[in-house]
């Protein structure tokens, strides 16, 4: 057991924390809300090699572990950075497997291709709303027996959908995304997609965990600073106890996210279940924390001027990109309980 980051990871955390603090300021986050994507930030991330950092070195990537990627995703989440980082990293992982993806993967590394991933398999030619699709060049998707890369014919525009979290969401259908490149077929396609979605869960859980940490910090700082009835809001026992409960759940969420990453890196049989747990618990805890922090702001929390509303909306939105949590819970139960004979 070792619950500390490696020295390399600590250094990585320091540098990406600095990057996001500078490049994903609240002003930049607000400015990017309508589009859901900050192209300048994206270029910086490309320069830092982040989009392909999880890809094996022999394929031109950074060879980072999932535990490393989680360190980056936490810092991105902490600044609610306006890029669909978990989707890009997941799409890159899918492109990195089959030979057919090599050119696109190179484009991702060079910043000429912005990819995203459809988390739900296509049904009747549509994947429903997909985060990042409003700005992406390609969407990796599972279409029946095939794992495909979808793209649009030159000049075909995609209509961004107004959404809760400013995540560049668009409907993905094969009518619009009509060009396809097959990456894999059959069981291999399904396994690759399922495995990629599991990676997405861990990375999104990490982003939510970073969001949660910052939402808690914002709330704690506010209640210490702000006075009501002659005392700091922090003096009130109900405020203290609610924050203590959230901090406790938060420590649990943080551990669970790192454990899920470790399980993936270690090839543990529990990796898929832990990824689901991490996403569910990190999402729930992040939303509860952001909602409480917003509430403690009083009326100000409700104004767009304060940052906490940026966190409140994304805490709910990021998790739900995958769909209703009940499906995740059922799948988790199957992972955990149904495997063993009765």
């Amino acid at each position, binding site marked *: 057991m070792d619950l500390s980051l490696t020295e390399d990871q600590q250094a990585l955390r320091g540098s990406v924390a600095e990057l996001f603090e500078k490049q994903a300021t609240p002003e930049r986050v607000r400015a990017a809300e309508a589009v859901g994507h900050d192209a300048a930030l994206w270029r910086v991330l490309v320069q830092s090699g982040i989009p392909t950092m999880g890809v094996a070195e022999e394929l031109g990537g950074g060879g980072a572990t999932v535990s490393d990627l989680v360190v980056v995703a936490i810092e991105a989440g902490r600044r609610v950075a306006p890029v669909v980082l978990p989707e890009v990293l997941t799409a890159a992982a899918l492109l990195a497997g089959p030979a057919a993806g090599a050119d696109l993967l190179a484009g991702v590394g060079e910043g000429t291709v912005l990819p995203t991933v459809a988390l*739900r398999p296509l*049904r009747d030619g549509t994947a*429903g*709303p997909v985060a990042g699709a409003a700005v992406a060049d390609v969407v990796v998707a599972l279409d029946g027996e095939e794992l495909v890369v979808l793209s649009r014919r030159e000049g075909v525009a995609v209509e961004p*959908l*107004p*959404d*809760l*979290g400013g*995540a560049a*969401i668009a409907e993905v259908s094969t009518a619009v995304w009509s060009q396809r490149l097959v990456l894999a077929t059959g069981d291999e396609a399904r396994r690759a997609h399922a495995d990629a979605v599991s990676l997405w869960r861990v990375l999104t859980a990490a982003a939510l965990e970073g969001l949660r940490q910052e939402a808690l910090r914002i709330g704690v700082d506010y209640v210490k600073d702000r006075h*009501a*009835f*002659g*005392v700091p809001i922090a*003096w*009130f*026992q*109900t405020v203290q106890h609610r924050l203590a409960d959230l901090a406790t759940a938060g420590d649990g969420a943080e551990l669970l996210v790192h454990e899920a990453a470790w399980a993936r890196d270690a090839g543990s049989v529990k990796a898929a279940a832990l990824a689901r747990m991490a996403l569910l618990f990190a999402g729930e805890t992040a*939303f509860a924390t952001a*909602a409480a922090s*917003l*509430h403690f702001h*009083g*009326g100000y*929390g*409700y*104004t*767009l*001027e304060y940052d906490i*509303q940026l966190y*409140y*909306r994304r805490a*709910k*939105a990021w998790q*739900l*990109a*995958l*769909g*209703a*949590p*009940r*499906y995740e819970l059922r799948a988790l139960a199957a992972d955990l309980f149904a495997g063993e004979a009765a």
Partner: protein
Amino acid sequence: MDFTEHDSLAEFRKAATAWADEHVDPAWVDLEHTTGTHHNPELHALLGAQGLLGAGWPAQYGGTDVDPAYALAVFQEIGARGLRMDGWVTTEMVARTILHVATEEAKQEIVPAALRGEVVIVLGYTEPGSGSDVAAAKMRAVRDGDEWVVNGSKMFTSTAHMATHVFLLTRTNTEVSKHKGLTLLLARLDDPGVEVQPVHTLGGQRTNATFYSDVRVPDTLRIGDVDGGWGVMRVALVHERGTATAPGGPTLVEQVAAWARSAPGADGAPLLDDPTVAEQLARLAIDEEVGRLLGLKVRWVASTGGMPGIEGSMQKLHSSEAEQRRVDVLTDLLGEQALLAGDAGPLHGAVEWALRKAPVSTIYGGSSEVMREIVAERRLGLPRSRPIG
């Protein structure tokens, strides 16, 4: 007990519908959403001109002979069509307070014009430095002959950009305890010392921060006694009523349930066939029924001559906490569909909007903490635990 709810306005519903059909422009709803302003000046002027605002008021102060029950039915029908009348809600409240505690001069100057729709009054209680602790107001008003000179700022002065007057809670005495040095003044918003800055909110509503620099208010528009502002606030609270919506509209839970009868889940079957969806919607329906009953109790206590202070606090506490539980559950039920706003989402984005609106419910109109305190102290007889401040 008898839980039958008789619609006391039943005989006026048809006429109210006809009035709205004739006068309410459906485009106003979109306008309200776009601007975030819960006040339509065109509609307001019309209501004033037709004597609907003056229904039931004393004739000597501009009251009209329009039947007040008919007027209320019209207001409710307007609400049922998705329009809010926040400007009238605050104007009415202040006008009633003026009738109770102000000088004859103020009554004559303000009330008839308000009932004609020409004067619109907004509330200036909360300040950047106060919140639930309204009595901590720091805005200074200093007497200068027949006038008061006002300096300071107010927060959450909704509708100020569409109104003529603001009802200001000011501090006129700093030598006494905080509740004792307050005075209410009615200032004109077109005074050159007034600045109105928009403040946009998560739920889309526009409110304002307002700034006051040597704003002058004649003493005739002082509402109530000097340093007696806290008592005047209590009078005003009694007159806070809001325009209840007409009965019969489906609740958000009912709308989602109706939608879920055909909308498919991940397995292609209707969402309502999913046991979890059914269970959760049933739970929310219980919450809504409990909220309805707590509201019924408020009306019952009032109808028997009581002051439903505790019951009102319970109803407020329950309904705002229930609203937050509701949106949390509904967004999770809808999954990725809950993220889509406006017409991109199911039910015109009602659930996405509900999630953005919900946080203010436990703050606005008395925070849940204040409501719990009232219930703890006045219903359960528990000791006051918060600092005197």
